[in-house]
């Protein structure tokens, strides 16, 4: 016999789902009034994708809650109710933490998995090296060794990513435990899904932060990044070898040119700075010389003036003696004339 309440929920869910789908479809349509504008890209719009993914997870959870645990009258076994709310059909929501590495790390994993699959489908079976390094020889020795190194790096990277995801999952589990502990606090009352959701976010972020600041996480994080980089580096090396065979400039070559150019720019600026410093030194030396000359001149004028006074005084006594030559020449430097010294 049909359960009218459940039928109602099911109908409502269907209606809500249709509404959601319509909303996302319409959101991706070109703006009204510009029928010729290209449709918004379904992929590649980072904000849109992230926004929709986050909203969809929450929306699905509310729907599941309506159909399940929350659509019942409050029970004394709230822990079981909590399990219903955050487990089973609400799995996408429960894995929200797991999704944090989807944007970056998952891209890597997919790429490598497809790399491995391609190798297998091409009749190579497992990539050489995935079962451990084996000796290589002959004309293709280097390529075989590279393939082995890449396969080993892929395996190491997948293991490191799995270790990281394990810690993320632990944060998820501990988040739920913290949520339960918070709900068990005396006087705590939650009367809406949004209130429960916000409390779950607080509890989960706390659990995550504690794990993320642990030495274990730091090591796992570093290993994940380092192994991913190792894979990428080996892939780049193989790609570059192919490019070299095809006569296509490689990134290493362009990068090397960039490095030389930047070195030249630095040297040029440094030499300019040195030249300016040399000019400045030259100007400073000339200034010092000029200052010395001015001092000498001033001293000379002072001496000449003194000499003139002396001469005047003597003239008063011996009026027939001629005045000193130097005293008549303002630019002459006293004491430099051999005749005068005589």
């Amino acid at each position, binding site marked *: 016999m049909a359960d009218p309440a459940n039928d109602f929920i099911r109908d*409502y869910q269907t209606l*809500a789902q249709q*509404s959601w789908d319509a*909303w996302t479809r*319409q*959101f991706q349509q070109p*703006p009204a009034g510009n029928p010729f504008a290209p449709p918004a890209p379904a992929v590649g719009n*980072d*904000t849109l994708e*992230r*926004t929709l993914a*986050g*909203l969809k997870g929450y*929306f699905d959870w*509310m*729907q599941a*809650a*309506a159909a399940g645990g*929350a*659509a019942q009258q*409050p029970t004394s*076994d*709230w822990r079981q*109710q909590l399990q219903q709310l955050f487990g089973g059909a609400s799995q996408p929501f429960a894995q*929200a*933490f797991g*999704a*944090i*590495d989807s*944007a970056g790390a998952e891209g890597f994993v997919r790429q490598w998995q497809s790399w491995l699959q391609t190798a297998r489908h091409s009749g190579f079976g497992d990539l050489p090296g995935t079962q451990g390094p084996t000796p290589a020889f002959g004309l293709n020795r280097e390529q075989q060794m590279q393939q082995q190194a890449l396969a080993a790096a892929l395996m190491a990277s997948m293991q490191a990513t799995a270790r990281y995801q394990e810690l993320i999952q632990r944060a998820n589990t501990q988040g739920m435990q913290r949520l339960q502990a918070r709900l068990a*606090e005396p006087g*705590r009352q*939650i*009367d*809406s*899904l*949004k209130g429960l*959701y916000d409390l779950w976010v607080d509890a989960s*972020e706390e659990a*995550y*932060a504690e794990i*993320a*600041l642990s030495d274990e*996480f*730091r090591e796992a*994080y*570093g290993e994940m*990044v*380092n192994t991913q*980089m*190792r894979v*990428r*580096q080996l892939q*780049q090396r193989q790609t570059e070898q192919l490019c070299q065979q095809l006569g296509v400039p490689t990134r290493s070559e*362009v990068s090397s040119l*960039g490095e030389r*150019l*930047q*070195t030249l720019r630095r040297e040029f*600026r440094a030499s300019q700075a040195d030249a300016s410093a040399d000019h400045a030194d030259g100007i400073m030396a000339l200034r010092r010389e000029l200052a010395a000359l001015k001092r000498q001149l001033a001293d000379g004028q002072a001496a000449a003036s003194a000499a003139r006074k002396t001469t005047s005084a003597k003239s008063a006594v011996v009026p027939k003696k001629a005045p000193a030559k130097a005293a008549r020449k303002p630019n002459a430097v006293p004491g430099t004339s051999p005749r005068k010294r005589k």
Partner: protein
Amino acid sequence: MQTPLRIDPAKVLADIATFQRKLAAGMGYLRDMREPEYANTPRELVYSEDKLKVWHFTGHGKTTAKVPLLIVYALVNTVWMTDLQADRSMVRNLLEQGEDVYLIDWGYPDGADRWLTLDDYINGYLDRCVDVVRERHGLDAINLLGICQGGAFSLCYTALHPDKVKNLITMVTPVDFHTPDNMLSHWCRSMDVDLFVDTMGNIPAGLMNYVYLTLKPLRLNQQKYIGMVDILDNPAELENFLRMERWIFDSPDQAGEAFRQFIKDFYQGNKLVKGTLEIGSQPVDLGLIAQPVLNIFAEQDHLVPPDASRALGKHVGTTDYTQLAFKGGHIGIYVSGRAQREVPPAIHQWLRQRA
């Protein structure tokens, strides 16, 4: 025991209906909405080199400050956080206080910038920008306002070129990179940065943003957008939200070599406080900074923990050191209502007392 979960099924359905209604109402706004503009406070270009530009802000009140203020932003994200929107613009508020404001827009590095080092940025670009402003005003020294990583750059610059800086202000600036609550520093300490940069070249902005999101994954990847649904039927608030999204995700790649040095010397080596940092073979000694220093940090900063900034007081040489703790986060310190009321006036007052 009484159950803490008292969720009324009827209310659940009503919540879902509300959620749907808001989504539907917001659909039209979102589809037709254009890219939100920043505040774009009037400004003139006074210097450019490679991809960087130095802007001088004009208008908005009479300039009373005798010494100009040069804003040195981080290489991550763009400087427009300081001039985000008309009613949330630190630049505009500083102008209204009477400050004469310049800022450096570092631009968007590409492959040509792969080999730029911290020496190129600090003793090269930054020094030339400072010289341009000094020459325009006929001054020996100007005021610097360094923000986040730009604050670390400003500290290095002031220690290396003390004659060219009159007063130094640092905002949300990491100084001690090894405080126990520094998640970014914690994560990158086991990274092989040489392998990372040798492989990636320049570091893509998307990767940087992804790392920042994983500092608070649930809040930043999901809860924030659920909150957005509440404002979908409010065009003004929605525009503000989207403007912030634009700023967060429209960010530059990082020049590989500078990134390598910054991670190794600052995040991993913590050399700024250890006194072992060298920029362009010149030792950087914070103890040589004798200028007045105003250090502003955010108490709820998840990117630069408050203790990472507070450490400056212990290492800087000046006897005129002021610390200002702001009740907010790393972004709120520029754009929150409280920030508009508190931060620019505090900066202006502090500078005026040291004019």
